[in-house]
C-alpha cells in the first residue's frame, strides 16, 4: 500500500517537473533538437537538473535497502547490442518528428486535445506491436 502511495506521489512530482520545465510543449523539445536552426537549450537544463540530483542521490540510495522492497530492481544487462541501438534510433526519429516522448505524451492527455489522444493511442499501438513481435 505504501509503495503505491509513493509511486503516485512520484508520478505527480514527475509530471509537475515536466510541465514547469516546458518539456510538454513539443516546440520547446524540437527547439533543442534543432541545432542547425534557432537552438533552444532548455532541455540541457532539465537533463542537467535531473541527472545532477540523481547522480548523488542514486549513489547513496543504491547502498541502502529500499523503504518498501527487500532489494533494488536494477537493470543488470550490460550488452550494447543491435536491439538497443535500433530501438534508440527509432525512438529518436519519432521524438524528432513530433517533439514528444512518453512522459510528456501522457501528461498532455489532460489537455484533451485530439493530438494528445492520437499520440498516446499510436504510442500504445507501437508498444503493443513490439509485444506481438517478441512473442515466440
Amino acid at each position, binding site marked *: 500500500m505504501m509503495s*503505491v502511495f509513493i*509511486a503516485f506521489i*512520484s508520478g*505527480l*512530482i*514527475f*509530471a*509537475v*517537473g515536466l510541465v*514547469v*520545465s*516546458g518539456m510538454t510543449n513539443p516546440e520547446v523539445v*524540437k527547439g533543442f*533538437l*534543432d*541545432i542547425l536552426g534557432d537552438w533552444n537549450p*532548455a532541455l540541457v*537544463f*532539465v*537533463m*542537467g*537538473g*535531473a*541527472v*545532477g540530483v540523481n547522480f548523488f*542521490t542514486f549513489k547513496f540510495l543504491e547502498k541502502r*535497502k529500499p*523503504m*518498501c*522492497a527487500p532489494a533494488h530492481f536494477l537493470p543488470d544487462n550490460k550488452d*550494447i547490442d543491435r536491439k*538497443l541501438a*535500433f*530501438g*534508440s*534510433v*527509432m*525512438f*529518436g*526519429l*519519432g*521524438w*524528432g*518528428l*513530433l517533439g514528444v*516522448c*512518453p*512522459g510528456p505524451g*501522457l*501528461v498532455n*492527455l*489532460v*489537455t484533451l*486535445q485530439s*493530438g494528445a489522444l492520437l499520440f498516446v493511442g*499510436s*504510442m500504445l499501438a507501437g*508498444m503493443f*506491436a*513490439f509485444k506481438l513481435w517478441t512473442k515466440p
Partner: protein
Amino acid sequence: MENYWMPLLGGVLIGLSSSTMLGGLGRITGISGILGVSLSKPSRENNWRYAFLAGLIGGGALLLFLKPGYFDYSLDYPIWQIIGAGLLVGFGTRLGSGCTSGHGVCGLARTSGRSLVATVLFILSGMLMVAVRGIFS
C-alpha cells in the same frame, strides 16, 4: 539565463521524483517501461506502475487546474506526423529498453554504458529528423 530557471527547477523535480522511486521502491523510473509492462493483463505486481501513471496524469491535471497558462500550446499537427511519431516512439522505446526518463534521467546518473549509448543515439537521431524536415519544408 533568466529563462532557464524553470527548466532547471523542473529537472530537479524530475530528479527528486526518480530518487523517491529508487529509495522507496528500489525501481528505476522509466516511463516507457512502466507503460509498456502495464499493457499486460492486470496484476497486483503492476499496482505501483498503475499508481505512478495515475500520479503522472494527476500531476498534469493539477497544474492544468492551478496554472492553465502552462498548457498554452497547440498539439494540432498533421495526423500522419502524430501517428508516425507515436508508433516510432512506442516501438522504439520498447526495443531499446528505455526513453528519456529511464536511459536519460536515471541511466546517465548511474553511469550506465548502455544508457549513454542509447541517449546519444536518440538525441542524434532526433536532431537528424528535425534537420531533414527543416531542409524539406
